[in-house]
């Protein structure tokens, strides 16, 4: 199950942060997201993988903690998408397809002419769409 998703702008400014646990651990999850920004910076600035995966938008598993796994995705426009999950056995392909859908939702949200670039995304339809994507991720895992 995905417990938290985040969109972070190119100056590391939070654009969207949502946790799905319903409990009061939101602060802890936000902290995890915050920590992952450093990992993303490190990955992008000191690439040590092979050339084929060098500039892929999907960054893979950023770091595992005791209970969570954190995945990252960096778009061409330097917007970071971060996802925290409690599933310990996650398929890469599932995460990829999750990020692809999440990115599409983000693009649609910022294409709204009333959205101010660089400001937080407040659109309700975006939240709803992200909620659906997050739910479908958990669902496909259990099948």
């Amino acid at each position, binding site marked *: 199950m995905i417990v938290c998703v985040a969109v972070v702008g*190119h100056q590391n400014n939070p654009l969207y942060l949502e946790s799905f646990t319903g409990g009061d651990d939101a602060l802890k999850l936000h902290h995890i997201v915050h920590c992952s920004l450093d990992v993303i910076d490190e990955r992008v600035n000191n690439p040590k993988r092979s050339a084929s995966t*060098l*500039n*892929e*938008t999907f960054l893979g598993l950023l770091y595992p903690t005791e209970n969570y796994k954190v995945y990252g995705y*960096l*778009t*061409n*426009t*330097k*917007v970071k998408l971060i996802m925290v999950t409690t599933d310990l056995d996650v398929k890469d392909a599932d995460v990829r397809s999750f990020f692809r859908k999440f*990115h*599409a939702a983000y*693009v649609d949200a*910022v*294409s709204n*002419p009333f959205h101010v*670039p660089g400001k937080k995304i407040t659109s309700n339809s975006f939240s709803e769409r992200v909620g659906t994507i997050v739910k479908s991720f958990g669902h496909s895992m259990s099948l």
Partner: protein
Amino acid sequence: MGREVAESCIDGVIIEMVSAYSTRFYSSKPDVAARRIEAIGYQVGHQLSERYTMERPRFADHLEAIKFICKDFWTEVFKKQIDNLKTNHRGTFVLQDNHFRWLTRISLDPAVVANTEAASEGESGADSGAQMTSMLLYFPCGIIRGALTNLGIPCAVSADMSNLPACKFPCDTRQLVVLVF
């Protein structure tokens, strides 16, 4: 890509927008009108670049991003590629389009055109026809600037149209020249 819009509608909207800004809202201040039109283009380019770079790997350097603008972005927006890309390797790129789509259906008053040609080597080249066309180019300039800025390349874009409908877009990224090398 899902929904599409007829090209003639886009042409009509752009021409009408430019004329509204330059003759109605800011008729006495053409520079303000130009800035406003450019700002609209900037937002459009900003959003389009987000969408069109969705399924591709990140760009390694500026040249790759400029090439993306010349090929894929141009094809999406103007249905053709850039004809010629020049650079001085110091951060200035010149994108030349010999048949710029958005200007192909602009008709100029023949008398005005004759005037412009007569005065082309003279000093009074800034007559109404040429001015009108140059106003139309602020919008695509803004689109290119918005797209490049969103891809992490702050720049200045201007348009040069000495022989229509050919069109040049010099993109000056000079602020970043240190990074380019």
